[in-house]
């Protein structure tokens, strides 16, 4: 069923009842798998993603043999000075409405893997772990638009949980525009956080930023859109990323506070105690 966007301008509400600048419900958890170095589970609306981080650890024995076939390799491979970030995405067959089997070599999946690997390799402090490898496996359990954004957010959470040093959170979200490219509507308004239906019909982009700065670390646009609309979409997307960062930060802090209350970590000596000596 085609999405009727004619009401967007009038009712100011989208198909799922949100306004143009509202995110979907984000629910996130870290440390979902006790055996992993780092793990997370993230829901953005009905997009549900699970992430497991292994490492930094010694690269496996099949190094060199597989080369580029083994997912997206961020940074330089081989015995480099930096840790290698390897991302593996598995999209479950039951995750979308039409059951589709995606093989290992699916081009869209490979594209997302390399985007994610390059984004994280630029943000994680990989120079601290020479000759090692950081494995990030992502499982998509349910898809409802903004998949790449959800994957980036889940991977960030899992990396924080794994205690891998990074410059700042990498948070992502999508932005779109209320009318199609063909409509050539100059007055089209930007939309935040597209769902599946909107993603199918409307032009959209995925933007990832570093922390609460305006520094864009990843920008993916797979649809045709007039250049004049791009600025507005980008601005809305960057603003959405900041909102996402706040939510993810709360999740991490809640975990830290729980650990302090349980007494598993020390309170620490901080800057407030600094003038004592």
């Amino acid at each position, binding site marked *: 069923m085609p999405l009727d966007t004619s009401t967007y301008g009038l009712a*100011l509400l989208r198909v799922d009842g949100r*306004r*143009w*600048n509202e995110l979907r*419900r*984000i*629910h996130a*958890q870290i440390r*979902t798998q*006790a*055996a992993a170095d780092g793990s997370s589970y993230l829901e953005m609306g009905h997009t549900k993603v*699970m992430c497991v981080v292994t*490492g*930094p*650890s*010694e690269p496996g024995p099949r190094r060199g043999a597989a080369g580029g076939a083994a997912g997206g390799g961020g940074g330089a491979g081989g015995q480099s000075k930096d840790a290698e970030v390897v991302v593996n995405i598995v999209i479950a067959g039951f995750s979308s409405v039409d059951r589709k089997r995606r093989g290992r070599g699916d081009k869209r999946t490979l594209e997302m893997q390399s985007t994610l690997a390059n984004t994280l390799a630029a943000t994680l*402090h990989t120079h601290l*772990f020479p*000759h090692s490898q950081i494995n990030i496996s992502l499982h998509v359990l349910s898809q409802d638009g903004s998949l790449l954004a959800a994957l980036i957010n889940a991977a960030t959470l899992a990396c*924080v949980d*794994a*205690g891998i*040093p*990074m*410059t*700042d959170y990498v948070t992502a979200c999508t932005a779109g525009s*209320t009318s199609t490219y063909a409509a050539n509507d100059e007055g*089209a*308004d*930007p939309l935040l956080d597209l769902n599946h239906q909107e993603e199918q019909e409307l032009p959209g982009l995925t933007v990832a930023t570093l*922390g*609460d700065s*305006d520094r864009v670390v990843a920008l993916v646009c797979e649809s045709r859109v007039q250049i*004049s609309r791009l600025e*507005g979409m980008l*601005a*809305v997307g960057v*603003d*959405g990323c900041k*909102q996402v960062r706040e*939510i993810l930060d*709360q999740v*991490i*802090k809640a*975990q*830290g*506070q729980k650990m*302090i209350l*349980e007494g*598993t*970590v*020390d*309170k*620490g*000596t*901080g*800057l*407030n*105690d*600094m003038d004592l000596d």
Partner: protein
Amino acid sequence: MPITILPPKQTPQPSLPPHDIDSDSDSSSSNGGADLSLSPPSRKSHNNNNNNPLFTNLVTPGTLITPDPQWMRGHGTYIPPSHPHTIFSSLAGITTRTNKLISVTPLRSRYTPEVGDLVVGRIIEVQAKRWKVDINSTTLASLPLSAINLPGGILRKRTETDELQIRTFFSEGDLLVAEVQSLFQDGAAVLHTRSLKYGKLRNGLFVAVSGQSGGSGVVRSRRQVWTMEGRNGGGKMDVILGVNGYVWISKHVETIAKELEQKHMGITNMEENVSAGVYSSQNDGIDGGTMREMARLRGVVVALVENGCRVDEDMILRGYEEACEMALMMGEGGVEDVYLGGERGEELVRGLRGR
């Protein structure tokens, strides 16, 4: 391990965009609801975490720790090129200060080896003159052929014959206890087993728990190795807590040192009496009672970790007592009940904390 996914909670209302929310009609078009201005980022200061004084030292990646140039940055922090002298956190963790050095201890991370650490490891790879050992660190540790005791305790240079027989000492999959002798530039550890305390492990079971910096897990402490009496008819047991989070629980076997003591031999020629048996991979017979108590001890270690407790000698000893009492309370056949997962583990830890 099972995957735990909690039911969704009410999430906090996402903060509204900085712009006037009343103007969210579509007429606001191109300037959207966001700000792409190039003003310097408004980083949060460290003390807006919460009002609770307990949480003031909790930082997350990208948190500004201090803009003051007098502090030095330690682990878990960085200074971005754009803001010289300003220290930011790169980890989710707790700030710690040593004089003028500020570092962030992560809530959880892999084991980082330090010289002198007692570790339990597993041989992954055998090379010509060294073994590669998994010690739960970011890279494999290396154990050179020259850093082990030869059977018979002969002190001599390692020859080609030894190199050819390298698998008679340790082969792939063997467990060993060793000490970190030195560190490479990239943080990889070099191990040694040149003491009677160290060497190949047998007659026991292996438990991997999270490492030292993981909050819950093994902590560096005064005693990492001890012998304890098994209750309910179990024999003596040895426990080795590797700082890397690998734990070894085994049946206690009288060491050579003890034997020598009984024979009134000098400690000087102790090394010479290291028999070929130290590199044996053959387990001795273990009676059922000891096996049961070893399994119970393993249950205690796992329960402590699952419920976020530190793992050290004191906690394990108390936990073991508690577990034995719990088993007795179960009544009929209670002694046999060594299961300490799930609710029973929680009950055990509650008992420990209650005291």
